Each structure stands twice: as C-alpha cells, then as structure tokens.
C-alpha cells in the first residue's frame, strides 16, 4: 500500500477542537506543511493568541508560547530578539490582531521585526460567541450588532493588509482566502513566502487569510464558504501588497 496523504510533521497528533467546517483547521494544516517543507519545525517557536486558536500551542509540533489577548507580536519580538536564529511566528485572529492588539502588530511591523504573522480574518469574534470585530462587514449581524453593523456608529471594517502595506517595515504583505482548493493552494504559497522572507532575514511578513466561522455566522460550512467568497472578498480584495525583491 502506498501512502498518498498523511498528517504533516508540522502538526502534533492532537485532534483539533474547532467547530465542523471551521477553516482554522485548514490554515493550521497549511502552516504545519510549510514548517515541514522548509525543514524548520525543529527551530520554530510559535506564539498562540487568545481566540478560538488559543490552543494552537497544542497543535503545532514546535515550541510554543501562549500570549495575552493581542500581545502576540510583542511576545514574538521578545523571542526573536533573544533568539535571532530561530524561526518565530504568531498565529492571530482578527479580534486579537485588529482590535486589542493593533498597537502591537503595527509597531512590530514598523520595527520590521523578523518574524511571521498568520492573521486569520473571519470577520467576527469566534471564541466569545460571535460579537462584532473591527473586521465585521457593514450590515453583518453579530451578537453586539444585532441589527447588522452600521457605518455611522461603528466605522468601516478595518482592512488590515492594506493598513500594513502602508508600513515600510512590513516587507511581505498578502491577503489570501481558503474558501476553495485553488485558493487554499495560493494561501499556502503566501505562507511559505512569508516564512522565506523571515529565513532570509529581511523583515516582517504578514499573511491575512480570509476564514469562516460557520458557528457564529449561523450557516452551514458550505454556505459559509460561499458567504466568504461573495461578501468578504469584494471588501477584502485578495492579492499581494508587497514582496521583497530577494524572494520574488
């Protein structure tokens, strides 16, 4: 019997706790595969956020450090500055990165810290039960925008990749999605590039990944993928915002 597909060595054997159809699992797998393919599992140190992926430290097969809500980029800075030869990454949700931890991510990028950020944008706070995030779309219902997010009182959804692209220190910025197989492949490429940028010692890299939250969106997994494609991508256009010459 030939093995055609198996778990990546970048992940542990632990079963994910994510809801059925949640794309956090897909994104974990992509990061794990990239760690394995770049042969950096043994030298990687990941920083887990607060959010549904709070237990990411149980899943990645490398040393892991849990951080306070939003502070992962500061923790990663502390690790990378003391261990410049290790590979350091943060895995953060949109509440974590684009709300409570905006200062930390902006300034880590601004200093061009040489770590990689995997930013999972599911347009909602998953873990706490579906409250509005800075990334929630206009009109999108959440438990704290029960009539749908309105522009006048809550502002427009924050476009993180575009914002990061204005920061010189963010040398690699790309937005991808995982709503279907071709896009999952593209997402993996972007994640790999972001790590390669770190390995080349160039500076800060971030990949924003559009993700689903079937549970809090109140949809089936399949409808969630459709909703992502039809509603999120028009507002959060996919594409590369910046890549350094060295890894083009």
């Amino acid at each position: 019997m030939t093995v055609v597909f198996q778990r990546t060595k970048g992940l542990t054997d632990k079963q994910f706790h994510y809801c059925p159809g949640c794309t956090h699992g897909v994104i974990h797998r992509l990061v794990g595969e990239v760690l394995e393919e770049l042969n950096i599992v043994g030298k990687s140190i990941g920083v887990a956020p607060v959010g549904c992926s709070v237990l990411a430290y149980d899943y990645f097969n490398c040393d892991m450090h849990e951080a306070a809500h939003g502070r992962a980029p500061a923790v990663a800075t502390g690790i990378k500055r003391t261990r410049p030869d290790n590979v350091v990454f943060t895995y953060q949700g949109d509440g974590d990165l684009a709300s409570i931890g905006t200062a930390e991510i902006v300034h880590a990028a601004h200093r061009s810290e040489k770590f990689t950020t995997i930013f999972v944008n599911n347009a909602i706070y998953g873990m706490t039960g579906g409250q509005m995030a800075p990334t929630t779309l206009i009109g999108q219902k959440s438990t704290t925008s029960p009539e749908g997010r309105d522009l006048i009182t809550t502002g427009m959804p924050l476009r993180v990749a575009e914002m990061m692209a204005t920061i010189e220190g963010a040398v690699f910025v790309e937005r991808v999605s995982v709503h279907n197989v071709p896009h999952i492949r593209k997402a993996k490429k972007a994640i790999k590039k972001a790590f390669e940028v770190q390995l080349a010692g160039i500076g800060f890299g971030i990949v924003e990944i559009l993700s689903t939250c079937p549970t809090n969106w109140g949809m089936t997994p399949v409808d969630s993928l459709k909703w992502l494609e039809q509603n999120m991508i028009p507002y959060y256009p996919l594409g590369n915002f910046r890549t350094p010459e060295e890894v083009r």
Partner: protein
Amino acid sequence: MVKILMKGNEAIGAAAIKAGCKFFFGYPITPQNELPEFMSRELPKINGVFVQAESEISAINMVYGAAGAGFRVMTSSSSPGLALKQEGISYIAGAELPCVIVNISRGGPGLGGIQPSQADYYMCTRGGGNGDYRHIVYAPATLQEAVDLTIEAFDVADYYRNPVMILGDGMIGQMMEPVEFREPKKRELPLKCWATDGTEGKRNPNIISSLFLDPAELEKHNFKLDKKYKDMEENEVRYEMYMVEDAEIVIIAYGTTSRITRNVVDALRNENIKVGLIRPITIWPFPNKAFKEISSSTKAILTVEMSMGQMIDDVKIANEGRLPVHFYGRAGGMIPTPDAIIGKVREIMGGDK
C-alpha cells in the same frame, strides 16, 4: 574593590548587566528614564539587545517572550507605567517565568506627579494583575543595597521561576551614591529545560502558557504556585532591626522613608528617647516575624510612609492587635521631614502618658 559614584537608575542598570542580563525592554517615563537610557548605551557593547517598546504593555510582553526563550531579562517603569505592566506580570507569574521588573515610583493617582512616592505599595505587593499570584518585592534604602538586591534578584527569579520586583522611588532613582559591584551569594539554579529554544527534533515541544481550561487543573496549578509563594514567605523575608531591643516606640519604614527615620531614631536617642526602627527590605513577603521580636518595653508602633497609608495594613496584621499602631504619611511627592516625624513621636509619647 573600587567604589563608583553613580546615579540610582544607572547603578540598577549596571547591576543587572553584572547579573548577566543582556535584554531590556522599556518605555520612557520619569523618574526612571536614566535606566533604559543606560541600557540602550551599554547592552549593544555586550551583544545584548535594548528595545524601546511602543508601550509598557508591549514592553512587559517582550519580557514575557524573552523570559520564555530562557534569558535573563529586565524592564523598568514608574507608577502609571507599572500599572500597565500588571497584565503581563500576571501572565509571567502564571506561566512561571523569571524576570526582573524595576519600579521607580512617583506620586499618584492618575498622572500624579514625578516626585518620589510610596503610594504603589498596594499595586506592587498585591499585584494589579488578575488571579492569585505573588512576587518578591525588594525595597532598597541605599544605592549599594539597590545594586546588591538587583544582582541577587536575577538568581532569585531563576530559582523560583517567578518575577521579582525592585521597588525604588524617585529619590532612589535620581540620587547619587558610591557603589561597588560585589559577587552575590550564589544559589544552585535549576536548568531552564522548559525554555522555547527550538526542539531540534530531539524532544517534545515546550509550551509556555498560563491557560488551564479544566478548573481542577487550574486549581492544581494555583496550589502549586501557592506552595512556591509559601516557600518565599518562609525563606526570602528580609528586614533590618535598628535599636528595637529596648525601644518604647518602634517605627516601621522602608526605602527612602527608612533613611529619614533612621536619622530620627539617632536624634531621639541622643535625647534618651527610646525609639527603634524596623525596616522591611522585602515588602512582600512582609517581615511579620520582626514584630514577634518587639520587646515588652514597646508601647506603640508608628508607620511612616510616603503615601496616605498603605503598608499600615500589613503592619496591623503583623502586630496582631498587640500594640496601638499610629501612622504618619506624606503624599503626592512630598517627603516627610525628620522634624515632622519627631513631632509625631512626641505626640504619641505624650498621648501614652
């Protein structure tokens, strides 16, 4: 050994480097700025790293990462900045990581002022962060003591895998005194086999976390931490007794106020008035046992603080209701004068007659 005339903030920085600290993460705030400035100058010379974070919250979380990576690391701040660091201190204590935090405190509440104050006593000894946690707080009264305690603090932090705080005030930070850098008493320190330094495929991943979703597990963790804190209370209490044996009034003061109070004791003793001083060097753990050594000649206790009265609670607990406890305090950056303290002693003695 040579003595060097140094400013308090710089002496603490130099002591940290002497102790093997190569990493410093900070954010400017008066009256502690000379400390990060010193580190920004000195650390690059020894292949260390200084990062000026964008906030105190970020700085303490950088410390969290660096400590997890297995290195000796320090941050410093002053009162409003320390308030912001409390989040991170709770996480560091929860994850059982060693680090040294310096608070060169100033008057509050709020933005307060920039003059020395001891009104951070509650915040430093009780912790402003969430959950049941504790850390040792050293309150040096001289720059030599600040240097000695800072050097030792790194060992103590590593020994217990716990944050340790050096609490000075604006006076300690800003004044100059001659100091020498002595070798500390060495402790046998555990290996940092828990550090995140990459598995290299040779071991299971190390995970640094303070999350325990199962309440039974979290309670177990709390019991474990509590045992560690009890050990600290048992073994790390430090204090100084000055002329307490036959004292009729025992004054309690730490840090800057203890310097002033020591002069008060000398002055009153010259007049044959029997006064003594208990000087806590650790304000957590508090030297409860010093109060057991108070003799039957003592009629009253006087707590002197640069606050509206925060340590007085611990003094009352330690005293266990045996003697009347009086208080004299100045706030907002005002420093008690010896005459004012002497006046307070005379008032108590008059009242006792």
